[in-house]
């Protein structure tokens, strides 16, 4: 019975994966006011059904039988094991064998059998598998991508759910449209846990974490990794990476970082981050990276302009992430010192008079305005959030107000576009309809994170009415209930943050209708 221990280990691994599959996929449930629960009035029960049970039962019997007969009839046993693997774990095979081999049709066919994996989005498995294959092909095969996209948007009895959205995102990525990919992947968080397969969520969250790591936004990365769930390898690695960079002492060992990296998928690409992190730790003593030297000027500059200009240049070349955040704060403080200093302003006015500038006050006002606009433009970089803005004094609050205005204007335009389209009764493919809402969601959340509560309060009335009607229309007229439900849930969260009880009530009620 030498095969038995191996078989046991294998069975344990497989059961563990099934467990992780069903548990690790739920995002943290949002806090609710009024105690409305998440899924108590769903119209469909949990999706274990007879087919799954039958397959497992037969499969388990076959496996045990094969293991028992391993020594006696190895060939048959092997064949039986293979067949049952295919039947029990079609997705594993697709994901780790067929997709890396880039066999599009085979992956699609096998993914059709993955009923359990795609129980939350039946029918979308083949297309997700195809999308994964197409992203690996280089250069991107345009015709095939276009064909898959139109198939995704075909009106069928199937509604658009997590796997379809993820497929859209992957196709956008292979076309190089990273904006659209980001909207699609970030929109997965809107969906109800039972409307998106765990596979789709994993892919989406890996993309988001990789993007955050690439731009050096460690705070967001930590948040994402923690929010996603602790039982996935990517989240382990990225979480550890983020905590490492932020200097948290919970995971001090470099070994742990290496281990999680080795376990996580996508090793080739994340190796660079691993090395950078460990190298950074070796050269510096403290937790944070050592501040870079301030740029030098080739001639003497009057104080306090010299400090401000140096800080401005330092901000320009600072790396995204905590370095940019620190540089921004320092720059804002330095310019505040300049604006407060009377002696240097007299000096400047004198120089203006020397040059023969007319309307001197206006000209100096223009300079101050240019400083503020530069700071506002830099404040959009990843790593700078509303804490930095509020620490910036009057300049910081000007920048915050300015960014709120700009972002509100952007949101207004997007909402207006949705409204116009509704009024004109234009029918778009459902993928594009969802991506429009997803773009709005991304923009909103990004601005909310950067600008905090004032933005949310001001933006909520803008999006409330129109998006609610839009979602209702999708629900009623187009029958795409899961994504409409997702929109209701998101709006309810927004309304809650903005303190809009009426809107919250309506959205909560609509959300409770389920899909």
């Amino acid at each position, binding site marked *: 019975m030498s095969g038995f221990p191996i078989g046991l280990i294998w069975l344990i691994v497989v059961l563990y994966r099934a467990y992780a599959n069903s548990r690790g996929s739920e995002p943290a449930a949002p806090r609710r006011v009024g105690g409305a629960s998440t899924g108590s009035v769903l119209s469909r029960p949990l999706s274990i059904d007879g087919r799954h049970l039958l397959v497992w039962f037969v499969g388990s019997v076959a496996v045990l039988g094969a293991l028992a007969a391993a020594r006696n009839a190895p060939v048959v046993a092997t064949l039986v094991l293979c067949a049952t693997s295919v039947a029990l774990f079609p997705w594993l095979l697709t994901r780790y064998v067929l997709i890396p081999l880039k066999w599009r049709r085979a992956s699609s066919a096998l993914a059709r059998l993955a009923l359990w994996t795609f129980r939350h989005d039946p029918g979308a498995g083949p297309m997700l598998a195809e999308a994964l294959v197409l992203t690996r092909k280089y250069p991107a095969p345009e015709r095939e991508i276009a064909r898959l996209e139109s198939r995704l948007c075909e009106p069928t009895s199937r509604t658009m759910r997590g796997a379809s959205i993820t497929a859209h995102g992957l196709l956008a990525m292979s076309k190089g449209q990273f904006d659209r990919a980001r909207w699609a992947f970030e929109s997965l968080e809107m969906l109800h846990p039972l409307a998106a397969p765990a596979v789709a969520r994993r892919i989406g969250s890996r993309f988001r974490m990789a993007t955050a790591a690439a731009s050096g936004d460690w705070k967001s990365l930590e948040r994402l990794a923690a929010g996603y769930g602790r039982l996935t390898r990517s989240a382990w690695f990225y979480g550890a990476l983020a905590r490492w960079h932020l200097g948290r002492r919970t995971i001090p060992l470099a070994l742990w970082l290496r281990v999680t990296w080795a376990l996580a998928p996508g090793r080739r690409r994340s190796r660079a981050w691993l090395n950078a992190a460990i190298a950074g730790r070796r050269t510096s003593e403290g937790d944070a990276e050592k501040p870079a030297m301030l*740029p*030098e*000027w*080739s*001639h*003497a*500059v*009057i*104080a306090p*302009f*010299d400090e401000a*200009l*140096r800080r*401005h*240049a330092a*901000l*320009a*070349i600072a790396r995204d992430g905590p370095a940019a955040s620190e540089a921004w704060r320092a720059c804002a403080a330095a310019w505040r010192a300049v604006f407060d200093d009377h002696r240097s302003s007299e*000096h*400047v006015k004198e*120089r*203006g008079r020397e*040059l*023969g*500038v*007319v*309307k001197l006050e206006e*000209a100096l006002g*223009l*300079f101050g*305005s*240019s400083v503020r*606009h*530069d700071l*506002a*433009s*830099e404040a959009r970089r990843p790593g700078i959030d509303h804490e930095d803005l509020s620490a910036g004094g009057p300049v910081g609050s000007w920048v915050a107000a300015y960014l709120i205005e700009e972002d509100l204007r952007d949101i207004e335009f997007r909402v207006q576009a949705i409204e116009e389209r509704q009024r004109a009764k234009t029918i778009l493919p459902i993928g594009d309809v969802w991506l429009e809402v997803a773009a709005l969601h991304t923009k909103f959340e990004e601005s909310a994170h950067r600008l905090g509560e004032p933005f949310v309060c001001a933006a909520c009335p803008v999006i409330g009415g129109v998006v609610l009607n839009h979602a209702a229309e999708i629900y009623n007229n187009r029958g795409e209930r899961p994504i409409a439900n997702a929109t209701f849930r998101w709006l309810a969260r927004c309304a809650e943050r903005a303190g809009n009880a009426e809107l919250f009530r309506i959205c909560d009620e609509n959300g409770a209708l389920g899909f």
Partner: protein
Amino acid sequence: MSVVSPGAYARVLTNPFIVLGLPPNASPAEIERQGQRLLLQLGAGRDGAATYVSPVGPGTRTPDLVRWAVDQLRDPRRRLFHELWAGVPPR
């Protein structure tokens, strides 16, 4: 001089004084002469003239950029603006 921000990097990199490699107290004649000289060098394909040093790193000179820089410094108002960004020297 509109208030559209080019970003901090472009702001420092494309400051006319820095592009021309002159201090902020350069005289108008010096500015014209340096501009002419750089244009001639760029026209002749001199390698040294094509890059310049700035506090945020090296930049590339093109004839259009040099002409723009010289023109910006002719108007007193714009010159004051650029002097402030290049760093007004103390007396």
